[in-house]
């Protein structure tokens, strides 16, 4: 081993290193650029997914905000509505309005004959048309005997066709609408008797098996009641827990246990909370299934850790000098918290609460467990009525095969996302407006 002595080689050695380094430099810089581009690709992929998902859902959902109507000449024939001529409201209620609709359809296409043909013709309008006429007569009995052009709700297949979602080139047996029906729809369209109007049904009615009559009002009200319970329970309890742990609790085993519990609860899968709700609230306490009350109880247990963690963060950000000043002025500990610390921490706590509520709004798995998946037509009127919530409604509709339901599902998702954006936006505004740097 003859080691080169340090004094003898420096020039050669440093030249050597330089060449070695320079030789590798290009490769290393290429690697650097590659690595950097991987990162950029990863970010772009993530952002692409966001855009893709929104584009996909908005693209599918926005047509659902318009609904197709057919203008039908209806004559409110007294012989059908009120054969006895008594104008008795009960008799008028139960008259055969479907016959009026059928007569109106025949009037538009007098040449159609034969049972199957006629049935196909009648199928162009929704079964809701009958109730629409009933409602109109109920509101204004003076209509009896008159003839009017009335916009009636078209059936879901017509709606889908008009929106261009049915491939006309397909064989007749493979599409939900027959050739003769397409012919009639084309004729009506040419005559300007088909029109797309803003879909108020979507927002005003409950669930239905007929896509054109299905709305999200029931689910929205269900979500509202559920979230109301969630907020009323989780916010006070969450704030109280945060205050206790941050301001009053002694550091001992017990409070450590509470803290570990809270952190673990935040990571428990949501479906396990559903199992808890089923076993405790429904089977043990015998509360009604499908009720927003139970849903709210389960979701508040889920939201509690979020609110507690956010609340504690908000409390720690209040500087100790505030506390010392209050105590120095002779306030009791509770007065110090109630009069000074809590008001200062409130914006942060509210922000956390709103974010927790937004998460609860989007939650559906635990609610499946407690029976909020039932098919419920009526709009719930209280916390004990059977109800469903918006995300569960989306889940229910996504299972249905009709194309019109795909559209409505996407529309419901858009409404849900709009609420999420609204709530998160509110949280951001709150934080921006009231955040204080001490």
């Amino acid at each position, binding site marked *: 081993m003859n080691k080169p002595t340090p004094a003898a080689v420096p020039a050669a050695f440093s030249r050597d290193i330089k060449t070695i380094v320079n030789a590798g430099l290009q490769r290393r810089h290429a690697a650097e650029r590659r690595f950097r581009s991987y990162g950029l690709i990863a*970010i772009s992929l*993530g952002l692409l997914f966001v855009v893709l998902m929104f584009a996909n*859902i908005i693209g599918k959902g926005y047509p659902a905000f318009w609904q197709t109507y057919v203008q039908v000449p209806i004559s409110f024939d007294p012989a059908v509505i009120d054969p006895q001529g008594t104008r008795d409201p009960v008799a008028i209620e139960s008259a055969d309005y479907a016959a009026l609709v059928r007569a109106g359809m025949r009037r538009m296409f007098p040449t159609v004959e034969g049972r199957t043909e006629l049935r196909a013709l009648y199928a162009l309008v929704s079964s809701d048309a009958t109730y629409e006429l009933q409602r109109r007569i109920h509101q204004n009995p003076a209509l009896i005997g008159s003839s009017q052009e009335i916009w009636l709700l078209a059936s879901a297949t017509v709606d889908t066709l008009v929106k261009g979602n049915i491939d006309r080139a397909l064989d007749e047996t493979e599409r939900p609408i027959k050739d003769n029906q397409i012919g009639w729809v084309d004729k009506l369209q040419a005559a300007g008797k088909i029109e797309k109007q803003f879909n108020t049904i979507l927002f005003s009615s409950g669930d239905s098996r007929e896509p054109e009559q299905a709305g999200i009002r029931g689910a929205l009200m269900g979500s509202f009641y559920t979230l109301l319970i969630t907020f009323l329970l989780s916010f006070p309890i969450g704030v109280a827990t945060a205050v206790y742990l941050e301001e009053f609790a002694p550091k001992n085993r017990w409070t450590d*246990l509470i803290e570990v519990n809270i952190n673990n609860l935040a990571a428990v899968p949501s479906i396990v909370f559903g199992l808890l709700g089923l076993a*405790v609230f429904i089977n043990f306490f015998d509360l009604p299934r499908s009720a927003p009350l139970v849903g709210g109880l389960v979701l508040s247990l889920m939201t509690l850790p979020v609110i507690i963690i956010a609340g504690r963060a908000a409390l720690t950000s209040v500087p100790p000098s505030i506390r010392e000043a209050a105590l120095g002025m002779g306030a009791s500990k509770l007065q110090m918290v109630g009069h000074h610390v809590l008001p200062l921490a409130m914006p942060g706590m509210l922000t956390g609460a709103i974010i927790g509520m937004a998460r609860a709004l*989007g939650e559906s798995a635990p609610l*499946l467990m407690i029976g909020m998946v039932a098919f419920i037509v009526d709009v719930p009127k209280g916390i004990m009525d059977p109800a469903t919530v918006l*995300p569960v409604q989306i889940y229910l509709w996504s299972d249905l095969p009709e194309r019109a339901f795909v559209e409505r599902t996407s529309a419901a998702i858009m409404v849900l996302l709009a609420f999420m954006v609204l709530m998160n936006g509110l949280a951001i505004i709150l934080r921006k407006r009231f955040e204080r740097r001490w």
Partner: protein
Amino acid sequence: MQSFLLLTLILLSVGGYYLGRNRAFAVAGGQIRHLHSLPSFYGSYTALWCGLPALIVFAVWAMLQPSVIIDLVVAGMPPELRNLPPDQLNLAINDLKNLVSGNIVSSTPDAAMLDAANRYRNLQLIGNASLWVVILTLAIASAAYAWRAISPTLRARNRVEQVVNLLLILSSTVAIFTTLGIVLSVLFESILFFRKVPITEFLFGTHWSPQTALRADQVGSSGAFGSVPLFAGTLLISGIAMVVAVPIGLMAALFLSEYATPKFRAFAKPALEILAGIPTVVYGFFAALTVAPLIREIGAAIGLHVASESALAAGLVMGIMIIPFVSSLSDDVINAVPQSMRDGSYALGATKSETITRVLLPAALPGIVGSILLAVSRAIGETMIVVMAAGLSANLTANPLEAVTTVTVQIVTLLTGDQEFDSPKTLAAFALGLMLFVVTLILNIIALHVVRKYREQYE
């Protein structure tokens, strides 16, 4: 009715507050400094006395009243009804309740039932009326007691604060009761399940088909409860999700913390976190209606058979959902590595990427592993995506193109729909829930422990 009583109680308490406060002024002769506490504390003291005891009695009463009334009614029934076996008696009681609330009854009520229903209604009326009387008397009496007790030396503030303190402590125990509730409810039902199905079969059996027979001679009712295929399916889908989420999430976090300009970071970080805010049901819809058909078509185009509910579709979309978890957790971890380590590496002539792969990542590895574990536990517990996009049949396969089912899917399918609560089918869901809870709990504890240890290392 009962909410009206509650409202009355609240109004009484508010009244008690003002009475108490005025009384404090009066006993002090208008000189507040003679009082031990501020007048508002005397008000709160009276209000608490007015509301709390009445509220406690109200809660106990409301819980006991229905069962007491049922007992009384049953005791008054004719003996042939009273001596029915318990399950038939329960049916009769159900009928009775329906009769009382005016619902449809399963059979035409006979005279005895009608009689019982009448008595039920009467008892309910009596019960409610006496509840009102008792609650209001109690509220007023205890408020009067507190009102009379007010004197300048009464330590009202301390008393009120004791109560508030107690309430705070009570609230903080809710978290413990929740955990206890989860563990007990899941454990209790699981024990019932393991009495019917041996635990070894559940843990190691490879055949899952929870259709239990209603009749002995029914076809297709194997009732096998081997959970291995479910866990294999869960692992497969979570594995695919992690394959998507970890590289993208980690690279995104590295880019954002090491390369991105502050402006780009301020835009990209929240934009990426939108993914975490989207409800899972939306991902499920996306997976089932967009991604799954797409994968199927691509598979058909290159001659592969892809199941329409392939594990790949569910896993991919779940991976997208998890990206922000991995990225924001790793971001925190990477930022916690001290700047001096980076500076040292740059000073030795390393490029940025070399610094990242040879210095930053090894230093941050424990934290990154912790955040990946948290993401895995998230993926295992995720429900809606797999319910909507994964299959129902339990296949034991590692092929991502086939349909598999997961633990959460089975819990949902076993528990939605009508069935008796004590059948092995529904109990199996709780056993699965127990497994899910235990597995995610262990993952979380390890992950939190690792992350905390790692943080301490650099503090």
